[in-house]
């Protein structure tokens, strides 16, 4: 049998995408389709006094216009997607987003009114007809000011702007600090950015009165959860709702947020009006209305002995939650847990306060709070190493969790509510490979001194990280041999470019002996697979991939059983290969899988009790805990001394995500992650004024890295299989992005020789002008 698992195979999904044939949400055209535009709050914080829709409704071509009061009982705050974790003593205030502003707007871009018209052009015209009266209030933006007495309140009934407070600790940090030879204490800040998938969000909904069913095409990462939620909101049974997440033009996390107001309103309008309705977010809306990530302020300290061994870490941090908190505490919990990194930290004391602000909601975006933790820990180690006179790589080596210590219990509660436990890992070889690949020793001994003598500012950075991936609760997969001999696989997760149609086919092909081109994978259609959770936390390959593996194994048994009956031989005497089954040693005597599928579904005779028709199986997989991937990034950077613009001369990623299903797809995931990491570290920052207005809400002003900014990335891997799933895989989606901020800080400090001036880089993101300020003591 030809093995495809583990091979760098090209993708099944590409031909349709390359020919422009693939269906995206905005490609859905239906007879009688209506179009929606939203009037959004121009203010970050303002009481809504009145909305007059009369003129808008009177405009020719407008079918309907709605404000909050028109929604009646349908107006409800959204559900809490992720409840708070079971951490003793924690505080959590649930304030979820609303479909349309009723009492007051809490961030710029919050929808106030919805216009439905014969075209998007008319709908947008009608927005100008709507008269709104506002009482503008002071906006809450700065995290520390938000917590001061007398600050304006985002949610008045709480009396504070605290969304949550969680304290996790283990060991005795105070004792550790007392015994320490060195305590390093710093403040670290990490500012907001946005995920900016190339496809904005969109929803199309169609109510079919004859079928008594609702179909919704949605750019979501979690179609099954959307189906269940919409059914509940609209008073339908789940079977009456079909949610399709077709090809999605990038997700990166914010398309996992639910329910967005537009997601709630468009299907409602389609049912009410009896016509299909479409809303496609424009890029300006996207900057305000799709969730953001990243603002945190950490006051962190690390206590070490004289040899550089960590005795303890203490961290107090503020997390910018934005105006509502439907996503619970996933982000700050990820920060809190991932800070521990690859290291033995005997005492840990961490408390965070999540803060409501008058800004767009914050939900996970690639890395999902992990990069903050990595930034704090890696920076603390860099500074400690300097102060102790230890090489920066040596201090990491001395503190790595040893390879025989796994599974390694970190003693804190993770975002999946289980105790944070690393399943497997081996960190020293990763660092060694990265140092070797980047040529660390030669750079320090020769390249850098020579460059400095020539007046060039060259620096090197090397950082390590772990990435919690593949969390539960579960995913499922249905594998079926078709009469054509092709194999279908359906799963409940959605795909946004991860190559699931290829990677899952490779998993199934390994069991069923068919070419991956003959395996048709469907993701993101609730009519094709009923159960599921979603694509997030680098879990698709781990959880849905394992379910596909389990289902394929059962189908394999069914194939063998049916073929054994056909050939009147023992199952052990059969070989499955190239889409056929034959008796061992007699390859000419074979039967195709399609013919076997026919035999398994007879028209006469009887299906034996205890067996099922067809060559089909559905399996589910729920991991006991997350699989912890790890890696190291290394970079050589040159900074133009005049403009302070960095040029990356070399970039190395050494990564361990367990068993690799498809190295080509993995390379793409890592490269894309690094590109976003570079954007987050040096290009992308959302700028706000004091009134909470976003100042750079366009792609001309919010800079994404281009082909000139992202270097060629060299890659190597180590493999520590996960014991928590049958494939041994770990997730890889976020690894590229997580450590890049810490890497930039270290490498830029080194390039500009800032430590010799007692200047440190303690913030992200940077820019040439900000780097100039920092390097001049600002």
């Amino acid at each position, binding site marked *: 049998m030809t093995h495809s698992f583990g091979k760098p195979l090209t993708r099944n999904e590409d031909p349709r995408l390359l020919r422009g044939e693939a269906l*995206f949400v905005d490609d859905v055209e239906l007879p009688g389709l209506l179009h929606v535009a939203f009037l959004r709050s121009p203010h970050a914080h303002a009481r809504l006094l009145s909305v007059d829709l009369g003129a808008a409704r009177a405009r020719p071509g407008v079918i309907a216009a709605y404000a909050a009061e028109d929604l009646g009982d349908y107006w409800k705050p959204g559900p809490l997607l992720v409840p708070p974790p079971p951490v003793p003593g924690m505080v959590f205030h649930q304030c979820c987003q609303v479909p349309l502003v009723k009492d007051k707007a809490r961030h710029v871009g919050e929808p106030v009114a919805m216009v439905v018209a014969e075209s998007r052009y008319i709908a947008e015209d009608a927005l100008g007809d709507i008269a709104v009266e506002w009482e503008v209030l002071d906006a809450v933006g700065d995290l520390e000011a938000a917590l001061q007495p007398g600050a304006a309140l985002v949610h008045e009934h709480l009396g504070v702007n605290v969304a949550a407070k969680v304290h996790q600790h283990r060991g005795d940090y105070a004792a550790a600090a007392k015994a320490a030879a060195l305590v390093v204490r710093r403040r670290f800040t990490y500012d907001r950015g946005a995920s900016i998938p190339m496809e904005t969000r969109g929803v199309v909904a169609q109510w079919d009165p004859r079928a008594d069913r609702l179909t919704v095409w949605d750019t979501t990462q979690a179609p099954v959860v959307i189906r269940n939620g919409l059914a509940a909101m609209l008073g339908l049974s789940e079977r009456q709702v079909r949610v399709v997440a077709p*090809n999605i033009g990038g997700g990166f996390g914010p398309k996992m947020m639910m329910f967005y107001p537009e997601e709630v309103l468009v299907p409602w309008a389609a049912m009410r009006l009896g016509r299909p309705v479409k809303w496609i977010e424009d890029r300006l809306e996207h900057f305000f209305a799709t969730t953001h990530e990243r603002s945190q302020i950490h006051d962190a300290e690390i206590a070490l002995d004289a040899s550089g061994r960590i005795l303890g870490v203490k961290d107090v941090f503020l997390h910018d939650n934005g105006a509502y908190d439907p996503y619970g505490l996933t982000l700050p919990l990820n920060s809190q847990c991932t800070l521990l990194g690859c290291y033995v930290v005997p005492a840990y004391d961490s408390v965070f306060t999540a803060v409501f602000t008058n800004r767009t909601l914050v939900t996970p975006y690639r890395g999902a709070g992990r990069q903050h933790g990595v930034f704090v820990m890696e920076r603390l180690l860099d500074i400690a190493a300097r102060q102790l006179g230890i090489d920066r790589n040596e201090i990491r080596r001395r503190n790595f969790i040893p390879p025989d210590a796994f599974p390694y219990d970190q003693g804190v509660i993770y975002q999946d509510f289980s105790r944070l436990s690393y399943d497997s890992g081996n960190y020293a070889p990763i660092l060694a490979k990265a140092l070797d690949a980047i040529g660390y020793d030669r750079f320090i001994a020769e390249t850098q001194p020579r460059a400095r003598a020539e007046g060039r500012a060259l620096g090197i950075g090397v950082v390590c990280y772990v990435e919690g991936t593949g969390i539960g609760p579960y995913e499922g997969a249905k594998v079926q041999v078709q009469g054509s001999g092709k194999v279908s696989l359906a799963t409940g997760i959605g795909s946004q470019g991860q190559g699931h149609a290829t990677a899952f086919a490779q998993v199934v092909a390994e069991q069923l002996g068919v070419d991956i081109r003959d395996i048709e994978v469907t993701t993101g259609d609730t009519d094709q697979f009923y159960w599921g959770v979603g694509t997030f936390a680098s879990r698709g390959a781990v959880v849905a991939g394992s379910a596909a593996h389990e289902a394929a194994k059962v189908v394999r048994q069914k194939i063998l059983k049916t073929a054994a009956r056909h050939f009147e031989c023992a199952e052990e005497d059969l070989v499955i290969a190239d889409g056929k089954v034959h008796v061992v040693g007699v390859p000419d005597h074979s039967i195709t899988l399609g013919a076997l599928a026919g035999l398994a579904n007879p028209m006469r005779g009887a299906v034996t009790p205890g067996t099922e028709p067809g060559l089909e199986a559905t399996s589910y997989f729920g991991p006991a805990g997350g699989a912890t991937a790890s890696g190291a990034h290394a970079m050589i950077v040159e900074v133009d001394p005049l403009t302070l613009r960095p040029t990356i001369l070399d970039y190395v990623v050494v990564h361990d995500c367990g068993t690799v299903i498809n190295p080509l797809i993995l390379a*793409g995931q890592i*490269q894309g992650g690094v590109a976003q990491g570079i954007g987050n570290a040096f290009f992308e920052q959302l700028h706000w004024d004091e009134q909470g207005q976003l100042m750079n809400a366009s792609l001309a002003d919010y800079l994404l890295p281009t082909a000139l900014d992202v270097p060629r990335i060299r890659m190597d891997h180590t493999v520590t299989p996960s014991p928590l799933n049958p494939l041994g895989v770990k997730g890889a989606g976020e690894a590229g992005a997580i450590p890049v901020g810490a890497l930039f800080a270290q490498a830029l400090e080194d390039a500009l020789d800032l430590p010799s001036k007692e200047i440190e880089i303690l913030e992200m993101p940077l820019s040439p002008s900000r780097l100039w300020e920092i390097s001049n003591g600002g």
Partner: protein
Amino acid sequence: MKVRVTVNGVAHERDVEPRLLLSDFIRHEIGLTGTHVGCEHGVCGACTILWDGAPARACLAFAVQAEGHDIRTVESLAQAPARLNALQQAFQDSHALQCGYCTPGILMTMTAFLAENPKPTEDEVRHALSGNLCRCTGYQHIVDAVLLAAERGA
């Protein structure tokens, strides 16, 4: 007002509002949805089409401005149904796309680029590509694909 445009070799005549964007005309009037819209302000390049052979942003033009012009979209690249042309094939071979949303615009930009510069260097490819944003790939595999297509004589 009336507009006559040739799209992928087929003459189309439609009565449209003067303000209708060319991108909306191609996608929603003609029904060629392979051309994608990413920003509607001319930065991302997802909607790039060929306008009399030269790459142009369909979101920055009105349909009526295309009167009498020859427009080509991604749907014109493959010479036969279910086939890929050499550039498209190089994209698949190099894993140069992930979500595929920016891909049609990049294919059109690179089609014009390779016609002008059939044997480019990596640096030239990166400059030519720098007007198209891709959020998934980090560009490396796209650069590889364009160089591969050039090597194969696309």
